[in-house]
C-alpha cells in the first residue's frame, strides 16, 4: 500500500477536528473534536513506524498518546463540569471574564 493513503486519511481527520474545535460552542463537543485530532496523529505515527520497517518507537508513542488523551479527557470533563456547576451553561463563548 502507499503510505499516502494513511497520511491523507490522517490529514482529513485532522482538518475535520480543527473545524470542530473552531466551530463548536459546547465544551463537550470541543473535547470530542480534540479526540479526532489525537487519533489522526496516531494514524500518522503508526504509518511512519511501518514505513521505517516496523519501528517500535512509533507504537510506543502511539500508546503514550492514548494515555495522555485519557488524562486530558478526564481533566477536561472535570473542568467542563465545574463551569456548568458555576454558570448552568457550558457555552464556551460566554466565558469572557478574562477579556481585558
Amino acid at each position, binding site marked *: *500500500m*502507499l*503510505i*499516502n*493513503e494513511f*497520511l*491523507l*486519511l490522517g*490529514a*482529513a481527520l*485532522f*482538518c*475535520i*477536528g*480543527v*473545524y*470542530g474545535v473552531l*466551530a*463548536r*460552542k*459546547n*465544551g*463537550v*463537543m470541543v*473535547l*470530542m*473534536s480534540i*479526540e*479526532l485530532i489525537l*487519533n489522526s496523529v*496516531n*494514524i500518522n505515527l*503508526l*504509518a511512519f*513506524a*511501518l*514505513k521505517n520497517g*516496523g519501528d*517500535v*518507537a*512509533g*507504537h*510506543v508513542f*502511539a*500508546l503514550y498518546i*492514548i*494515555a*495522555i*488523551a*485519557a*488524562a486530558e*479527557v*478526564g*481533566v477536561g*470533563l*472535570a473542568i*467542563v*463540569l465545574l463551569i*456548568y456547576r458555576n454558570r448552568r451553561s*457550558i457555552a464556551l463563548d460566554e466565558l469572557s471574564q478574562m477579556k481585558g
Partner: protein
Amino acid sequence: MIYAANSVPQHIGFGIIAALMIVGALRVVTSNNIIRAALWLVVVLAGAAAQYILLAAEFVAVTQVLVYIGAIMVLFLFGTMLTRAQIGYEKELNNKHRIIPGVVALMLAGILTYVLIDAYHASRLPKVDVVTTQQVSDAIFTTYLLPFWALSLVLTAAVIGAIVLARKD
C-alpha cells in the same frame, strides 16, 4: 507473520473503513445532537482501530478499543449526562460564525494534501514482520522507561486533579 504490503483486499478494506471514518468524523462535528455525535465518534474510533491493524500494530489496536471505546466514550457520555438537562436535538451547539472555521479547515486540508502528495507520492510501505506485543513491551520497559514513568506521574496528577475539581463542597 509477514505483513503483506500490497494485496488487493487491503486496499478495499482500507477504502471502506476510511470512507466510514470520514463520514463519521463529519457527523461528529456537524451533528446537532450530543449523544449522536458521541456515537458517531465511536464509529471513527473503531475505524481507527481497524486502520491500526492494517498498519500491523495489533497491540495499539487492542488498546484503542479498550481505552478509547471502553473508557473515554463512557466518560463522554457521563459528561453529557451531568452537564445538560435534555437529551436530543439542540441548536445551541455551534458558534454563530461557521464560515471562518470552514475556510481555515479547507485551507489546512489543501496545504496538507499538497505537501503530502508532493513528498510521498511514490513511497510504498515495505514488507515487514508484524510488531508483536512482546516487542512493544520490551521497548516500553527498557528504552522508553523514563517517558513511561513521566506518563504515570501525569496520569496520577490528572486523576487527582479531576477528583479535586469535580468534588462538591
